[in-house]
């Protein structure tokens, strides 16, 4: 039962690309807090890339490896422009090319896709000539990266690779400490009265 969605069969380069994109959106950083310097784990350390891969493969049309190819193509155009490669001389982009870009350029490659500055007919199906789908997927990458990172995902520990109904909270999700969210609660007694009551309006 537990093995029915085994998520661990993505190509190595697909994983690298997803790590690379998560690393741009939520990098590991050192930052100052009132108490001094603190290190904050980024999305890669908290396995958010795996979260994205699993979700994209759980769509009606699985899209994890197609999305990785999409990123590679955009990286390819990024390189072509950056290093003035002759556009006539084109070679097929290699798998994982996106992950070889420095952070800033990865962001440019994502923007390039979002702004549809790639020849849409060269993209893998179903992205080929489908600008709306490209944009929705870029939006989803942002949205799901943030949602995965700041929700309980990391706290599932090694049960995170199980099908959704077989995951359990194993540890305190590290990201909750970054926001101060105390986690689900049975209640809070921050009750400051009522500004209006229905019964006051009965005369209406």
């Amino acid at each position, binding site marked *: 039962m537990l093995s029915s969605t085994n998520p661990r069969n993505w190509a190595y380069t697909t994983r690298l690309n997803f790590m690379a994109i998560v690393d741009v959106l939520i990098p590991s950083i050192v930052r100052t807090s009132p108490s001094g310097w603190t290190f904050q784990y980024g999305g890669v350390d908290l396995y958010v890339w795996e979260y994205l891969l699993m979700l994209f493969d759980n769509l009606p049309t699985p899209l994890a490896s197609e999305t990785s190819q999409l990123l590679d193509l955009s990286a390819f155009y990024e390189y072509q422009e950056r290093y003035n490669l002759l556009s006539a001389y084109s070679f097929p982009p290699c798998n994982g090319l996106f992950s070889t870009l420095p952070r800033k350029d990865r962001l440019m490659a994502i923007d390039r896709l979002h702004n549809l500055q790639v020849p849409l007919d060269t993209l893998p199906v179903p992205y080929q000539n489908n600008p*709306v789908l490209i944009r929705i997927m870029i939006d989803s990458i942002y949205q799901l990266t943030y949602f995965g990172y700041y929700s309980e995902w990391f706290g599932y520990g090694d049960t995170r690779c199980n099908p*959704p109904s077989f995951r359990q909270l194993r540890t305190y999700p590290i990201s909750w400490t970054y926001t101060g969210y105390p986690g*689900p609660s*049975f209640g809070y007694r921050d009750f*400051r009265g009522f500004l209006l009551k229905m019964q006051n309006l009965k005369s209406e």
Partner: protein
Amino acid sequence: MQKQDVIVIGAGGGGAVIAKELGEQGLHVLILEAGPWYGNKMWPHPNTEAGGVSSRCPNDLDVGLFKENYNRLENNMNNQITGKLRWGPANREHPPWNRSYQQRGFVWQNSGVGGTTQHYLANSPRAFPASIDSEWPLTYHELVPYYEKVEAELPVEFAPTTSKEELFYFGARKAGWDLLATLNVEAPGFRPQPNAILPPNANFLNPAYSEEQLSWMEGCTLAGHCINGCPIGPSVDKIAKRSTNVSYVPLALKTGNVEILPNTFSYNIITEYHPEEGLKAIGVKVRNTWTGVRDELFADCIIVAAGAIETPRLWLNSSLPVNQWVGRGLVNHQMDMVTGIFNEKDLLPILGCSEVNPFVGHTSGARLDHPGLGSIQTIGTSPGLMASFTYALGKSGATQSEQYGIQKGRVMGKELIELMGDYKSSLNILICTDDEVDIRNGVSVLTETPDENGPIPSIRYTPTTNTLRKKRKLVKIAADILLQARARKVIHSDWPDGMMIHIMSTMRMGYVVDQNCESFQVNRLFIADNSVLNNGLGSANPTLTTQAIAVRTAEQIYKKYF
């Protein structure tokens, strides 16, 4: 299964209400629901095993199971692809049901008994009277008794004040707005949300009870999980947030006349030609989502309450007569988000504490209504939802707006980390625009890409210039309130146009159905969900109005056919 008088398709915001009303009239009602049923002994493991076939007995409801399922973890509950509250079959190892979009954005809906009300915020304002009186085949005055009935049944109360409402009221007052002490909104002003949430119980502040004990008692504990599904209460029918699975569904079962089949997708409406009545609906074709087994079920009247996307899809896939308004005129309140970040020292004199704590209290406890423009509403969610809806969704990368000194657009990297570091001192405001009906917006079906339930819906929406103008004004009002409340920073998310949370008016009253919600073209076919709304209600959250109309429709069905 006994012979049915009525079949209701969908057990969500509208379907559960009409079923209960008809059950009380003594009619035999069968509800066909596509998704799972949480908190029912017939389905102890609703997401992993097929379980029973149907349930009709209030004793099947089990609050222990309910709490086990609604476990308050936001990813487990509210992930749109694999969450318990998603648009898809009960088995979460299967993908969600597909839709095709013609613009950026997505439709946010749930399947399952309770439908999308399982994670709605229970905000239950009435429509603005002017939005009904100008365009509907009914008057606002005619709707009031039905509003009152639903308000008493749910019941609806005004939200209590916690820190985030206090901060909003403070800002709204300073910005010059007045308190609006009314349910019938004719002028602008702020007020607590009228919502379907039970007030905290009398012992709420009594330290002799632990929070955990309180969570098994009747009344809201301000636990702040409304949007992830509320599990607080002593029994299924007394859960604090009144989604229809805990309000109208138990009442429907208590009539002894209502039976519910979850995991049952309706994919076709069966009609026949009758010499006196003309074309009339007589039955429904269904497919079990676990077994794939198909069946046909028959009744004297068919009521569709499948929501504003699936109801037109069902009409189109059943090849019912052509009507140019079927699926057309979709409105979604053209939403957006504006967020304030506060300094601790500025909060102290206003709140008596140095944090807003968005996770405390009702997810949405306060609002400002502005007839002619729309409304704005406070939102406080768990951090994953907050990050993804506030900072991920911008149309563009972050820019500083000259006009109002606020930041606009999506943020990432270090800036995101810093903003989320201020999670506890931030306040979100949702914009709900009074958007205009436009026949070009709506739902059609893609015959070339069917799923197991037939051609899938294709959704098209572009706001009108006038709608966008109103939205800009509301964004400005929200930003001003936050700045008046001394926000250090204000961020306008700048959502894409197709963010659909209040999906309405795709089978408009007066165009597709008459004022009794019976189809003009197919007799004995009624609609009882958001799709019958004739417009966007001026921007009032739609569910209460849908429910009031469903009560009225039940009366009309009984009078006409039984």
